[in-house]
C-alpha cells in the first residue's frame, strides 16, 4: 500500500473522529447503553436479584416440621416472611403484586406438603421465589430423618415458568415504542431534506402537518406491533387476554411514543441529533422498563427510575391483560391513565415547540 494512501486514510479517520466527538449527544448515547447493560445485567446475574421479597406463609397446624420450615424461610435474606391466616386475602395480594409468593404448609402429622403459590405473570420473579423456598425445604429435608417434605407449585394464571409469555408483552410495548418514535423522526429528516418545505408552501396549516405525522407515527407503531403480536401468539403460543384491550393498549402505547417523538422532533433541528436523542431516551427504557426481567429485581434506585418511564406502564398493562387476563376495571386502569398523561403532555409540549419551528 502506498504511503500516500495511508496518510489520506488517517486524514479521513481524523475527520470522522472530529465529527464524532463534536457531536456530544452521540458520544453520550454510545456510552449510556453499555453502562446500563453493565449495571442492570450485573445485578441480575450476580445473585442479587431477590432481597427481602415479601412472601406470605400460611400454615395449617403447628407441627415441629412446619415450624422448622418457617424458621428456615425466615432465615433467608432473600425473603421477608409474613404469617397470614386468610388464604384468599394472600392470593389477592399476590395477584396485585404486593406479595411475590404464598407458601402454604400443611401437615397431617406424618407427611408434610408445601405448596408454593406463585404469580406466573412474572415468571422470572416466581422462579426466584420458588428457588429460595426449594432451597429452604432441601435444607430441612437434609436435617430430618423421616419422610421428606413434598413440594408443589400452584400458579395463579396457569402459565407456569413460561418466560416467553412474560417476554411477549414487553417486546410488544418495545415494538410500539420504536416503531412510533422512529416514524416521528421523519419530520426532522424532512426538515433537513427540504421536503417539508414542499408541504409548508401549500395552504396547509402547520397543525395539520403535526396531526398527520402523529397519525402516521401511531399507525406504523401499531401495525408493526400487531405483526409481533401475531407472531407471539401463533408461533410462541403467548396468551392474548382481552384482544380489544390489548389492541387499545398497543395503540395507546404507539400514541404515547409518537408524542415523545413529536417532542424530540421539535427540540432537534438535525436528524443526527434527533436520532441520538431518540436512542438516548428509548434504549435505557428497554432495559429499565421491565421488558426482559421484572423491575422488582433491580436495585432500588433503578426501580425508582423505572417507575418514571412510560414503557414500564405499557409493559405492565400488556402483561396484566395478556397473562393475568385483566380487564379495564382492574389495575390496568392506572397504567392507562399514566400512558395517556404521558401522551397528552408530550404531544402538547412537542406540538407547541414544533408549531413555533414550522412558523419560522
Amino acid at each position, binding site marked *: 500500500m502506498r504511503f500516500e494512501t495511508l496518510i489520506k486514510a488517517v486524514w479521513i479517520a481524523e475527520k470522522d473522529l472530529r465529527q464524532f466527538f463534536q457531536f456530544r449527544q452521540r458520544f453520550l448515547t454510545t456510552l449510556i447503553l453499555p453502562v446500563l447493560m453493565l449495571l442492570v445485567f450485573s445485578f441480575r446475574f450476580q445473585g442479587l436479584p431477590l432481597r427481602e421479597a415479601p412472601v406470605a406463609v400460611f400454615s395449617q397446624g403447628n407441627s415441629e416440621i412446619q415450624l422448622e420450615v418457617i424458621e428456615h424461610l425466615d432465615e433467608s435474606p432473600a425473603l421477608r416472611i409474613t404469617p397470614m391466616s386468610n388464604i384468599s386475602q394472600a392470593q389477592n395480594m399476590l395477584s396485585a403484586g404486593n406479595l411475590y409468593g404464598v407458601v402454604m404448609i400443611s401437615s397431617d402429622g406424618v407427611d408434610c406438603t408445601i405448596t408454593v403459590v406463585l404469580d406466573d405473570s412474572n415468571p422470572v420473579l416466581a422462579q426466584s421465589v420458588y428457588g429460595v423456598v426449594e432451597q429452604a425445604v432441601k435444607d430441612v429435608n437434609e436435617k430430618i430423618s423421616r419422610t421428606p417434605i413434598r413440594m408443589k407449585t400452584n400458579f395463579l394464571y396457569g402459565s407456569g415458568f413460561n418466560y416467553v409469555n412474560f417476554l411477549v408483552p414487553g417486546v410488544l410495548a418495545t415494538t410500539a415504542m420504536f416503531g412510533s418514535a422512529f416514524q416521528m423522526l421523519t419530520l426532522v429528516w424532512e426538515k433537513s*431534506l*427540504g*421536503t417539508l*418545505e*414542499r*408541504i*409548508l*408552501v*401549500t*395552504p*396547509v*396549516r402547520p397543525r395539520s402537518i403535526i396531526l398527520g405525522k402523529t397519525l402516521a407515527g401511531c399507525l406504523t407503531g401499531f401495525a408493526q406491533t400487531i405483526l409481533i403480536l401475531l407472531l407471539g401468539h401463533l408461533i410462541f403460543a403467548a396468551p392474548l387476554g382481552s384482544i380489544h384491550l390489548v389492541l387499545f393498549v398497543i395503540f395507546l402505547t404507539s400514541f404515547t411514543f409518537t408524542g415523545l417523538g413529536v417532542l424530540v422532533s421539535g427540540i432537534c433541528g438535525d436528524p443526527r441529533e434527533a436520532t441520538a436523542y431518540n436512542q438516548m431516551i428509548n434504549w435505557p427504557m428497554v432495559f429499565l422498563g421491565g421488558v426482559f426481567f421484572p423491575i422488582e429485581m433491580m436495585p432500588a434506585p433503578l426501580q425508582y427510575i423505572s417507575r418514571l418511564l412510560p414503557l414500564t406502564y405499557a409493559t405492565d398493562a400488556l402483561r396484566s391483560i395478556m397473562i393475568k387476563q385483566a380487564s379495564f376495571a382492574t389495575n390496568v386502569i392506572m397504567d392507562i391513565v399514566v400512558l395517556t398523561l404521558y401522551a397528552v403532555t408530550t404531544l402538547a409540549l412537542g406540538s407547541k415547540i414544533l408549531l413555533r419551528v414550522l*412558523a*419560522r
Partner: protein
Amino acid sequence: MEPAIKTYDLTKLFGKVIAVQKINFEVDRGEIFGFLGPNGAGKTTTIRMLCCLLRPTEGTAEIGGYNVLKEPQKVKAKIGYVPELSNMYTDLSATYNLKLMARLHDVPRKVRKKKIDELLEVFELRGREKDRVSTFSKGMQRRLTIAAALVHNPEILFLDELTTGLDVQSARKIRDLVKQLNSQGVTVFLTTHRIEEAEELCGRIGIIDFGKLVALDTLQNLKKLAGESDILEFVVPEHSSLLAHCLSQISSVRSVSFDQSNKVLRVHALDADSALPKMFELAIKRSIRIVSVRKMEPTLEDVFLRLTGRTLREEEPAHNLHLLVQRGYKP
C-alpha cells in the same frame, strides 16, 4: 389592479447578520421579474420570505393583494414555489408527488387527474410517471418540481435558481417552459446568478448585493448604467497579471478584470478606440502575447461590476484586478 408582488422595507436578520436589508419593489401581473445577484446576496432569503417560508424580521410583503404575515394561507393558495434544490419525495412516484401537492392545494378531485395528466404531458414525464423520482435524471426531477408547483394553477410562480446544475439542453427546455407559462398569464419571479438567464427571460431585473437592492429596471435601462465606457476583451494565452497591471495604468482605463474560464481580460475604458494603440504598444514592449481583441456591448455583468465593484461569479474575485489594485496589490 394591485401588483402581483409588493414589498415594504422587507428585512431579514439571522442573528446579527443582515441577509436582506429594507428591500422595496413591485412586480406587475404578467411580468417575468428577475432577481440577479451572486451567491449569498440574499436572493433565496427574499424568495422564502415572499413564499411565507421565512418570517421577515422587519417589513412585510403583499402577494396577490394578501399580506405574507397576516394571511399566509391565502398567499400560499396563489403561489407556486420551485426551490433551488428539487425537493420531491424521491422514494415515491411522480404521479403520487403531483397528487399529494394537488390534494394539499385543494384541487377538486374531478379536476385533479386531468391536471396531473396535462402536467405530465407538458413536462415530458409521460411514460415514467409511475417510477420512483429517485430514478429520474436531474433535468426530469427539475421539470417535476416545476410541475408540482403548477398543480393548482398559481397566479404567481417563484423560481429559485431555476437551471442550476442542469445541462444546456435541459436548461433551455426549462426556460422555454417558463416563457410558455408566462404567455399564459402567470407572473414569474425568479432569482438567478446567471446573466444569460436573466437577460433571456426577464422584462425587469433587480440587482441585489449584500442584501441590498442596488438597481431595478428593464434590461435596456440597466445596461445604460454600465456607463459611457467601452468594453474591450483581450483573449490571452494565460492570465497575465503584468498585462492587467499595465492596462490599468492607462488613464482612460476604468477597470480590468479577468475571466478565468475563457482566458479573457475585460477592460472598461473611455474612448477605447484611441486607447487601443497604447495598449498594444505596452503589450509589445513587455513581450506579452495577445491572441485577439474585440469590442463588446455592455452586459449585466458589467452593470453589476459598475454598481458593486465586484463580479457576479464570487469564486473569481481574486482575478478581479480592479479590486486587488484598490487594496494595494502590486503585480
